[in-house]
């Protein structure tokens, strides 16, 4: 009975391992990649024909062909990065959602955080000053006038 229980537990463990994502992935490595995997790669590539449409949601004939090519490359064992490199070499860097960080492309990565940093610094330095009510000469004049008025009123009483 004990042995039967052990066997049952072992078979459950095996079944769980067989159904795990890692196991599924390893079985797919040799064959055609899943649509999800193709779309995950396609999401980072842009349609060659329609502007600003990611490849995973594009319905043109060109995009369908490109997704087919991604599937073929993945099935051949290409890594995601190798697929991106292949597409950039074949069709230009414009197809990449994230341009490689080299040359002038660095500006794309540098300018936004730099801009935000400078803006935050500017706001931090000036916000305090803007919040404080400015003591103007007009307030001073108003005070003098009020004091004089009080004095004259007192004198008349």
């Amino acid at each position: 009975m004990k042995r039967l229980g052990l066997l049952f537990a072992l078979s459950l463990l095996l079944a769980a391992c067989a159904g795990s994502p890692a196991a599924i992935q390893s079985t797919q490595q040799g064959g055609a990649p899943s649509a999800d995997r193709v779309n995950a790669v396609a999401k980072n590539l842009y349609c060659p024909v329609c502007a600003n449409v990611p490849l995973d949601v594009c319905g043109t004939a060109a995009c369908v062909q490109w997704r087919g090519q991604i599937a073929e490359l993945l099935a051949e064992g290409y890594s995601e990065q190798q697929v991106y490199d292949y597409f950039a070499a074949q069709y230009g860097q414009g197809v990449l959602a994230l341009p490689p960080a080299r040359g002038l492309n660095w500006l794309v990565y540098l300018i936004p955080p730099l801009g935000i940093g400078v803006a935050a610094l500017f706001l931090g330095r000036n916000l305090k000053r803007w919040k404080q009510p400015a003591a103007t000469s007009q307030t001073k004049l108003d005070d003098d006038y009020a004091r004089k008025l009080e004095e004259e009123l007192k004198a008349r009483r």
Partner: protein
Amino acid sequence: MTENKKPVSIVGRVLAWGLLLALLTLVAIQLRSSLQGILTRGEQAPAFTLTTFDGQTVRSEDLLGKVVLLNIWASWCAPCIEEAAHLEQAWQHYKDRGDVVFLGLAYVDTEKESLAFIEEHNITYLNGPDLGTTIYTAFRARGVPETFVINKYGEIASVKIGPYLSVEEITTVIDRLLELE
């Protein structure tokens, strides 16, 4: 109340203005290139090197002295299907002369589909992929199909945006260039 402002250093000012100037220059360059229209008649055709699907290398400088028809196409482009037969017929008309060259340039097309297109439409003139879309960009093309006819001096003699609708439309352009030169 007196404000106690810290003076900005000269280096800081120069750096800030320098950065701004550099950014504006970049934007100006980008704008200039994007506002440039398609190549027009009389302009020198850009130099290019095309490696065909069957491995031949075609260099534009080797084509001087010949009339060159450069057709940009894609297998996913419906109008390209329309003109494929006209282009092939025109090529058959000129292929034995030796002073006319037809080149097909597959734009953002997968090799498999390009080769299937070439086979399906019995295209016999040289064809190759536009790797990195460099030739398309150099010719400042705006879509497919687009065809540039280059004269014997390497100048743009004709630009056709959209498909040729007949063989005559192609031969008229080429014959005129062959007669003139």
